[in-house]
Every structure is written in structure tokens, then in C-alpha cells.
């Protein structure tokens, strides 16, 4: 917590609590106070927040797509290329050793951040999609012909397609956990889907299309009762809540560095040691071998078995800097602050006549997916962009979710800890202007 101070705003929050239309959401804030981050100081760390878009100050509410990067992360990338760029794990020279130390140091930071037992259980990938594919492409060791793989109806395409490909390859069957009208998974249906043929269960921790937090602990534990493997897509959770891999007990968990203030092109695959040992490597090359001859190659141990070729060294090191940054603010503080934005934003959006929020439940991340009357999300997105507000519109790479709710897409405002209520006010004004123009 060094360097940050918090203001406890009893009064303001109390007023908000009682004026809020949604008391259940507010009550989840905890007692009667919320933690305020030193938002001015935090915003000063993100140079991009100073820029203008279409002549207006940028309001960045597309954090579910990718987060912005603080100077501490940007500087780390520059430092690497300026001071100690060298290939890792290979040279005896000093520079290579330095680069290796920084890269492995970052792996250790990831380990500690997610409470992972051993650093070798942290596999660096190019991103969440890569992490999922790394598992799915070797998952024929876990999934046999006529077995069943369970996914949920609220998945991102990147957590659907690799499993469809696996099922086609091995002759397994894909089963889908349905979603309820309020955006939560139908857990009753899930428990009924589980049976002795269930070999793998994959769900996201937080849905990117709706922001709803899924009961992953219950899902994992139930799957394990049937000896099924589990993979949790943590793209939307990794930068927004405190995660504990040991408490969660998933066999695999996947993340993207760029969603947690790190650079693009670096991701994480966490796995239980036994699971990672059973999983065959999906790529061959340098780094991942123990011994190579034309008769037989033996693979290196973890994590190198899954890290063929030169990795994204700068990306890994900068992800370490992102973790330091998040730690300094504290993930609990980030989660509490962002929840405050969610509650406020939800109430404000509900005030817009005709607004309908999809996934308006208590347990969710600071993501609001909505439409206004029968207006097309694309039209609204185009107008608010002109007013400097960056929201996402469309199907959010989750077409099955949109089909479920029979809509062409939604407007999605997703917040991060460097956003403010004042920005939400500007967004709501922009939305109202758009509605007036379009109606």
C-alpha cells in the first residue's frame, strides 16, 4: 500500500446507498463505507488518459477488451530493450543472464500474485486464447471417444472453438450449460449434465459479454466428483479481483496480460503440476527439449516443455511490472472501487428511458451490457464515440449469448480502477444525446 492513501467516504456512500435504486447491489459494497483510491494519482500513471478523441477528452470504458497501461509498465518495456535485451536461458554472457533473471523474476511475481504453488506451473503464452488452445490441443489425453466436454452458453468464442475442434478430433460430444434470463448459468442444469462420461468442464470465471461472475468453485468441485478435468477462462477476472489458484482448485486457468495492465502478446497458463505433466506439448522447437536425436527427443520439464522458441521476453518482464503496480494498489481495493463504479453506473443507465441491462445480477464485475429501447447498439456506439466515449458494441465474440437473448448485440461499458463516476456521468449524457438523435 506504500505511496497510496485512501479516503474513507462514509457520507457520500451512505447517501448513494439510500438513493440507489438497487439496494442489494449497494449492500454488497460491504458495510457503510467504500474505499476511495487516490484516483488523481492513479490517473496520472496512465498517459493515454490525457489524450483527446474526436476533440473530446477520452473516456475509456472498453476495459473488458483491453486495459490501459501505466507508465511503470511502459517504462519497463523501454528499459528491457534499452538496457538488457538478450535471449534468455541460452547464453553464458552477462546480458543473457540479466534478461533471464528479469524474465524468471516475472514468473515468480505471477506465481505469488495468483497463489500458485510453484513457479514452474506458470507457463508464459502469447495470451488467453493461446493458453486455451495449448490445453485443448493436447487434451486428447483426458478426453476420449464418446466422452463429454461441458462448456457454458456464455463463453467467448476462444473458449468454444478449441473444444469443438477437440471433440471433432477425438469423437467426443460437446454439452452446453444453459444461461438463465438474468444472465446466470443454470446450475441445476449443470449438475444434471455431469455424468461418468464427463471428461472436461470449461467455463469462464467472468463472462465478457455480460460481466456475470460464474460460481466457478461450485463448478470445479462438482466436476471433480466425476473425475473430470477443469479449465477456467480467467480473461475477465485476472485484472479485477484477487485470485487464489490453490483455493479455487481448477486444473487449468488461463489469463491475458493485456487485460491486467500488462502488454499485449503475453499470457499465462496455470496448471496443476500433475495436469501439466500429463499434457503433451503442442509445439516443438528450441527451449522445450531435454535431448534431441533423430531417433528420439525427450522433452524438458515444466515450464519449458510448453515454451518452445524465444518467448515474449519484454512482455513477460513488463507483465511483472504490471503485477507490482496492481499489488501496490491492492486487488481487494481495486475490486471494491470498481464495484462502486458498477453500482453507480448501473443506477445511472437504468435512469435512461428504455434501457435494458443484460446480466443485471449481484455477483458481477464492473461490466454493464445493455441496449436502449430498440435502437441498434452500433448506432449508439458511433454517436458516443464522436463524443469521446469508448464503449464496445456488437456481439463481443460471444454470438451464442446474443442469440440466447435474441439481440444483434449490446453496448458494453466496462470499467477499471482508473475510471471515475464523473466519467460515467459524461457517458450517460452522451448516451442521452445519442438516443435523442436516433429516436
Amino acid at each position, binding site marked *: 500500500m506504500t505511496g497510496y492513501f485512501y479516503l474513507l467516504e462514509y457520507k457520500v456512500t451512505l447517501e448513494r446507498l439510500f438513493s440507489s435504486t438497487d439496494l442489494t447491489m449497494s449492500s454488497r459494497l460491504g458495510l457503510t463505507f467504500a474505499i476511495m483510491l487516490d484516483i488523481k494519482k492513479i490517473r496520472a500513471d496512465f498517459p493515454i488518459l490525457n489524450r483527446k478523441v*474526436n476533440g473530446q477528452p477520452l473516456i475509456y470504458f472498453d476495459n473488458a477488451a483491453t486495459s490501459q497501461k501505466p507508465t511503470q509498465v511502459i517504462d519497463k518495456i523501454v528499459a528491457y530493450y534499452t538496457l538488457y535485451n538478450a535471449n534468455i536461458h541460452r547464453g553464458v554472457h552477462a546480458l543473457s543472464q540479466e534478461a533471464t533473471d528479469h524474465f524468471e523474476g516475472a514468473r515468480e511475481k505471477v506465481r505469488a500474485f495468483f497463489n500458485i504453488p510453484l513457479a514452474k506451473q506458470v507457463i508464459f503464452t502469447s495470451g488467453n486464447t493461446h493458453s486455451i488452445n495449448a490445453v485443448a490441443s493436447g487434451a486428447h489425453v483426458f478426453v476420449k471417444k464418446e466422452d463429454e466436454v461441458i462448456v457454458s452458453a456464455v463463453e467467448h468464442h476462444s473458449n468454444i472453438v478449441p473444444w469443438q475442434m477437440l471433440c471433432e478430433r477425438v469423437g467426443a460430444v460437446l454439452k452446453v450449460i444453459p444461461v438463465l434470463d438474468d444472465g446466470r448459468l443454470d446450475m441445476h442444469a449443470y449438475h444434471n449434465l455431469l455424468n461418468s462420461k464427463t471428461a472436461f468442464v470449461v467455463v469462464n470465471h467472468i463472462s465478457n459479454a455480460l460481466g456475470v461472475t460464474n460460481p466457478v468453485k461450485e463448478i470445479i468441485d462438482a466436476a471433480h466428483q466425476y473425475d473430470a478435468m477443469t479449465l477456467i477462462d480467467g480473461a475477465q477476472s485476472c485484472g479485477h479481483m484477487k485470485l487464489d489458484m490453490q483455493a479455487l482448485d481448477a486444473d487449468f486457468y488461463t489469463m491475458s496480460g493485456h487485460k491486467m495492465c500488462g502488454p499485449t502478446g503475453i499470457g499465462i497458463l496455470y496448471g496443476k503440476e500433475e495436469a501439466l505433466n500429463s499434457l503433451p506439448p503442442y509445439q516443438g522447437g528450441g527451449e522445450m527439449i531435454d535431448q534431441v536425436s533423430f531417433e528420439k527427443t525427450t522433452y524438458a520439464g515444466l515450464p519449458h516443455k510448453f515454451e518452445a522458441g524465444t518467448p515474449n521476453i519484454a512482455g513477460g518482464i513488463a507483465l511483472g511490472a504490471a503485477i507490482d503496480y496492481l499489488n501496490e494498489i491492492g486487488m481487494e481495493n481495486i475490486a471494491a472501487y470498481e464495484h462502486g463504479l458498477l453500482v453507480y453506473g448501473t443506477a445511472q443507465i437504468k435512469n435512461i428511458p428504455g434501457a435494458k441491462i443484460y446480466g443485471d445480477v449481484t455477483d458481477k464485475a464492473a461490466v454493464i451490457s445493455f441496449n436502449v429501447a430498440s*435502437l*441498434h447498439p*452500433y*448506432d449508439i456506439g*458511433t*454517436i458516443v464515440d*464522436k463524443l469521446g466515449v469508448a464503449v464496445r*458494441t*456488437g456481439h463481443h465474440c460471444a454470438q451464442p449469448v446474443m442469440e440466447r437473448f435474441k439481440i*444483434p*448485440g449490446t453496448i458494453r461499458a466496462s470499467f477499471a480502477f482508473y475510471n471515475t463516476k464523473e466519467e460515467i456521468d459524461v457517458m450517460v449524457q452522451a448516451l442521452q444525446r445519442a438516443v435523442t*438523435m*436516433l429516436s
Partner: protein
Amino acid sequence: MASIQEIQEEIVEEFSMFDDWMQRYEYMIDLGKSLPLIDESLKTEDRIIKGCQSKVWVNAELESDKIAFTADSDAIITKGIIAILIRAWSGQKPADIIAAKTDFIDEIGLKEHLSPTRANGLVSMIKQLKMYAIAYQTQVN
């Protein structure tokens, strides 16, 4: 009938009367309302232009030696954009449509919609209209 070039110049002149983007968008939305609508029965899957976040259907019919376009979209702004294109190009000869320039879109301050990565797919719409023109060109000859 005025030439494509003349109509496009006329559109540019109309848009030049507005001094901010809001007025331009409002005018474009109005133009969308005057779009010759595609017959409901023609709103089929194969008439949807791919590459748009919103749905756009276009139909083209040859009337003697000229093409009549009708279209619709589920998004109002997209409808406005296609209305502008169709106002300039509908009722023209295939060869003229094939040769038509599109820089007037830039001149009316809608340049951002011309980016090939833009989700509204104006570029796809232009391509589709020109494809129809190429197809009918062979019939006219």
C-alpha cells in the same frame, strides 16, 4: 438524369452547409429515412452484406440499361450511409457505377466510415454495389 459525378457534388454541397458533425449525422439519419426500401421478401440471408456490425440488405435490378438499387439496414446510421450511396448510384448505367469514385464520402466528413476495418462495412457496401454493376454490365453488352 444527372450524372453520378453531379449528384455526388450536390451531396457534398448539401453537407458543406453544416458546421459540426452532429448536424451532418442528423442529416444523414434523415437521408436514411428516404432510402428506397428493399422489399421485405428480398431480405434474405444471401442479400446481407458481410462485414457489417449491423445488417444491410441490398437488392439490384436492371431496368432497361440502368440499375435500380434498394436497401435497408437495422441500424439507422448505416441506413443513412447506404442511402447516400444509393442516391448517387441508383438509376445509373453499370459502366458508370463501376467507374464511380468514392472520395465524396471523405469530403462530406464521413471519412472514418471509409476505413476498411470499420465495423459498418461501408467498404463492403461499395464493393457489393460495384459487383452488381459488373454482373449487369455483361447483360447490357
